[in-house]
């Protein structure tokens, strides 16, 4: 098994999008697995931002430089255009100020990569539409009253949101996650059939 195999499905798509030698910032970098992979396999120069102390310790174990911070406070310490790629993987839905966070990403990076669970997936719609219940699924595994996810979005909503934030969508990968972190790309009706998505954005 390679380190690449240990990544989440969305992280694998993201890893494949990062060019050789890029300067990469991962916001909410968790245990640093993705950044360590990008450094070791792509020769990327990597930096992370993370709020949780145990995750920071995992990053230090991987020798990934990480800065403890709250994304909702912005990236004020980072000058414009400092990074080639800024990543926000599975984190958009937990921040308090998604619009501000995305604008900050667009400011400090040439490209922004965002992955999120798709609230438009048919299973979610079924939960709400037929059962009248808040959805709980593999991609969204929390009860409504005890969830870090406070800003769910659908793929269609995110397209509008990107445009509204002054971003151009360069690429959009919608996929269905599978056991063991593999995934199948959903080409047809992505907003209905994909349970996750990765967007590549740049400033317009």
């Amino acid at each position, binding site marked *: 098994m390679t380190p690449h195999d240990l990544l989440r499905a969305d992280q694998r798509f993201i890893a494949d999008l990062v060019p050789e030698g890029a300067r990469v910032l991962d916001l909410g970098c968790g245990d640093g697995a993705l950044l360590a992979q990008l450094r070791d396999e792509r020769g990327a120069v990597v*930096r992370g931002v993370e709020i949780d*102390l145990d995750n*920071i*310790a995992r990053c*230090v*174990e991987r*020798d990934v*430089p*990480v*800065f403890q911070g709250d994304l909702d406070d912005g990236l004020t310490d980072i000058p414009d255009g400092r990074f080639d790629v800024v990543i926000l993987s599975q984190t958009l839905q937990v921040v308090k100020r998604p619009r501000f966070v995305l604008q900050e990403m667009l400011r400090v990076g040439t490209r922004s990569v965002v992955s999120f669970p798709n609230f438009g997936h048919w299973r979610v719609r079924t939960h709400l539409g037929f059962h009248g219940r808040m959805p709980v699924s593999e991609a969204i595994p929390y009860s409504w009253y005890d969830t870090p996810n406070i800003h769910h979005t659908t793929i269609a909503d995110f397209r509008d949101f990107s445009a509204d934030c002054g971003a151009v969508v360069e690429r959009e990968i919608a996929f269905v996650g599978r056991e063991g972190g593999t995934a199948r790309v959903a080409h047809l009706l992505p907003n209905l059939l994909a349970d996750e998505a990765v967007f590549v954005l740049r400033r317009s």
Partner: protein
Amino acid sequence: MDSTDAVRRPWEEAASAGVSETRTLALDGVLTLSGGRTLDHVEVAYETWGRLLDDGSNAILVCHALSGDSHLAGHRPGEDAATASPGWWDPMVGPGKAIDTDRFFVVCCNVLGGYSGTTGPSSIDPTTALPYGLRFPLVTIEDMVDVQARLLHALGVHRLLAVVGGSMGGMQALAWAKRYPDRVGSVIADATTWRLGAQAIAFNEVGRRAILEDPGFAGGDYYGADSQPESGLGIARMIGHITYLSDESMHKKFGRRLQDSDDYAYEFVSEFQVESYLAYQGQRFVERFDANTYLYMTKAMDYFDLQGEASTLADALRGVTARFLVLSFSSDWLFPTARSRELVAALREIGTEVTFAEIPSAYGHDAFLLEPEAQHKLIAPFLSNALDRPRAKREVAR
């Protein structure tokens, strides 16, 4: 991490660093100080742990804080291990500990101006054959670092794998990175600051006033005299001690409890537990510390400003290449997180590898001496990677 590591809590293994002896080295040549004055004869008291690899690649310097000394960990020769306290950062230094003496060659020395064996105001001035007292030149953090550099050279250490320090020791670690960028691979700046703010300087000044205005101080020439500046030094320590704690930790420890009575005495006597505690801390300090050294150390901290003449801190740090671990503690209001973040921002701006974490703690500034577990989890892998990951693999993000 295997299962034996998972149950082991190395920071709880007292005095595992074993017995170490304080040695003294006389530096060659004259030392020119930041203030322009010189010292002809400087002795440095130091201790070492572990073994220096043949290629010299595993040396770590640990720098002590205001009241510390070279006795970093373990016991002194002849000390009763059952009763004597181990060195001041014992939970962090020893075999299998964060600063692993099985892997690293660890050096700690008493700072210039100190009272524990290194030349300072209590040393004999060769020109008068009397203790220097206040005739000892003012020293800076940079002067302390220069003395350490000379000591290390004499010990055959030409490049440090890492320099580590908390509080005033952290200032030395930062000064190292800037002053000797080619000689430092990694820096751990723990509960420290790139410069003190007005509030911290103010507290230092109150402590100094208490000493200077104690009749027993006698202009600094109290060595061997009947009267000593015990009251002044004790008060200075009491003030200092308050600044090292937090409101929360003091309230938890003492509350408003009275020491010996259930009722107020309606007299100006020590009644509250916190009063007895501070008096005890002051008294204990007087027994082991020197009033003149207290003046010199606090002044060196006040003078320290990593930015110096540069227009921004980042400008001042250009050329620094070390990787950094910067740690602060949530309840430390003397060396606050906000100031650590300024340092980290500057280090990021110049493109160095820097990791920053704020450790949650109620212990205030003293937390760096009292929270070994959280520090272990960050410092151990940081230092381990310093040794294991070849320098060539690192790149600077510009």
